[in-house]
């Protein structure tokens, strides 16, 4: 059972990590916990199903289209909801984020209804649910392998964008000193938009994966996933991208093991317990920088 839970946990953890990087990157550049990020994840699942059922497109094109749409939604969210509040106290933006989360959730309910829907299984290759390989007495399905593969690929791409490109370096510069970044001629708003686009497209992939993995989508699915990914970002150290990746994986494994060995009823509780423990014992997270400020 241990191997099986570990594999399940790893799959889940990769998904949390994909969502968590969106929280952490946005926090890095504008010190805002974007509570509506979970809703982008949810919208991705619905948009994907819509693209499949309405346009009959193949799944890989749907994934790319959904990433693009969610990137756009993320940017619009920033422009209309957060940008006007850039000079306001942080609390104003935080409350707006919660407001946007509720707004998007209800918008989805109006458009797609509040009842859970299954994913369009016919759009997926049938072998996804079959066993790809067995390790000891644990079996890994093709789907789990795909989730693992795509998530890893996206993480590598993200890592390269942040560390090797001009705009990625500008993102890091901006998160370290906004005034100084502006003085370098960096268009601060454009880089912030780019950050939202990047985080939202990662979250979009996670949304589609979850909908496929659990074969269900509903307008409030972003809430729980969002809170857990947020916990993962806090665990890794908010503002740190590698931290969010590690935090997501650790949380996924902890959750799967807890569900396997204690009770699956405590599944969600474990994420919160981890978050509370981190806040008490190591508030800066695994890779977070301590918040000591030199005066």
């Amino acid at each position, binding site marked *: 059972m241990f191997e099986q839970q570990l594999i399940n946990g790893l799959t889940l953890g990769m998904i949390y990590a994909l969502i968590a990087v969106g929280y952490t990157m946005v926090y890095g550049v504008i010190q805002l916990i974007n509570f509506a990020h979970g809703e982008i994840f949810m919208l991705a699942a619905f948009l994907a199903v819509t693209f499949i059922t309405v346009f009959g497109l193949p799944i890989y094109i749907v994934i790319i289209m959904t990433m693009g749409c969610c990137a756009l939604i993320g940017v619009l969210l920033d422009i209309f909801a957060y940008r006007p509040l850039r000079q306001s106290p942080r609390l104003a933006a935080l409350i707006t984020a919660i407001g946007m989360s509720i707004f998007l959730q209800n918008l989805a309910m109006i458009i797609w209804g509040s009842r859970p829907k299954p994913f369009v299984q016919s759009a997926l290759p049938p072998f996804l649910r079959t066993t790809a390989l067995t390790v000891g007495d644990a079996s890994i399905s093709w789907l789990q392998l795909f989730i693992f593969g795509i998530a890893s690929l996206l993480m590598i791409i993200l890592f390269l964008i942040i560390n090797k490109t001009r705009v990625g370096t500008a993102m*890091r*510069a901006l998160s370290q*000193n906004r005034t*100084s970044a*502006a*003085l370098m*001629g960096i*268009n601060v708003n454009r880089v912030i938009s780019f950050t939202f686009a990047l985080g939202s497209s990662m979250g979009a992939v996670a949304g589609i994966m979850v909908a496929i993995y659990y074969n269900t989508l509903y307008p409030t699915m972003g809430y729980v996933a969002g809170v857990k990914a947020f916990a993962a970002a806090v665990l890794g150290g908010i503002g740190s991208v590698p931290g969010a990746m590690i935090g997501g994986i650790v949380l996924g494994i902890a959750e799967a093991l807890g569900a396997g060995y204690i009770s699956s009823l405590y599944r969600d509780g474990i994420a919160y317990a981890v978050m509370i423990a981190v806040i008490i014992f190591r508030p800066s997270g695994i890779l977070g920088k301590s918040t000591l400020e030199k005066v």
Partner: protein
Amino acid sequence: MLKLEDIHTYYGNIHAIKGLSLEVNLGEIVTLIGSNGAGKSTTLMSISGITRPRTGKIFFQDKDITTALTDTIVKMGITQVPEGRMIFPRLTVYENLLMGAYLRKDRKGIKMDEEHCFELFPILKERRKQAGGTLSGGEQQMLAIARALMARPKLLLLDEPSLGLAPIVVENIFEVITRINSSGTTILLVEQNAQMALQIAHKGYVLETGKIIMEGPAGELMENPKIQSAYLGID
């Protein structure tokens, strides 16, 4: 080259700059001296478009830049080395320099200026892979100046480059400033260290609580008894 006409800048309700006018001509080093809180940094931030003046006009090469965005201003050729250096602590020295050249596309030119910066400050070449935050204060100031030069500015705004540095390092930095100027870059230098600033400047302005109270050739200001007692420590 740069002309400020009667600008007023506010922080909320605080009237920080109260009708300031100054002029910097091509090729000059102009210094703006004054004590803490006189509005020196605010003046530079107003020029850079970070804190916009509420009234008044700023012209650069005869173009009105009063309401221009910071990136436009940088693109036009005004770069600032801000007070406290503000280097990016978790970017490497090299990445810091690249950020200075953010708006430029000419790879060859960037490479050339990089070499030029390493010539000017050899210590930065040794430390190019180190995080900016691990440098000493003096090295950080050098990095901040080098980073600004990477934008190939026509006008360089320097905000208290001597702040918190040992006298020998200050000497070194000021020598570099003169070299930058003699290679064709116009400089507006804000300083509390009036002695050093007036020595290398062509022209000086004295700022007190948001107003210019005196201006003239640097040599004359140094001879002025009022300046001597208030800013140069000579009775």
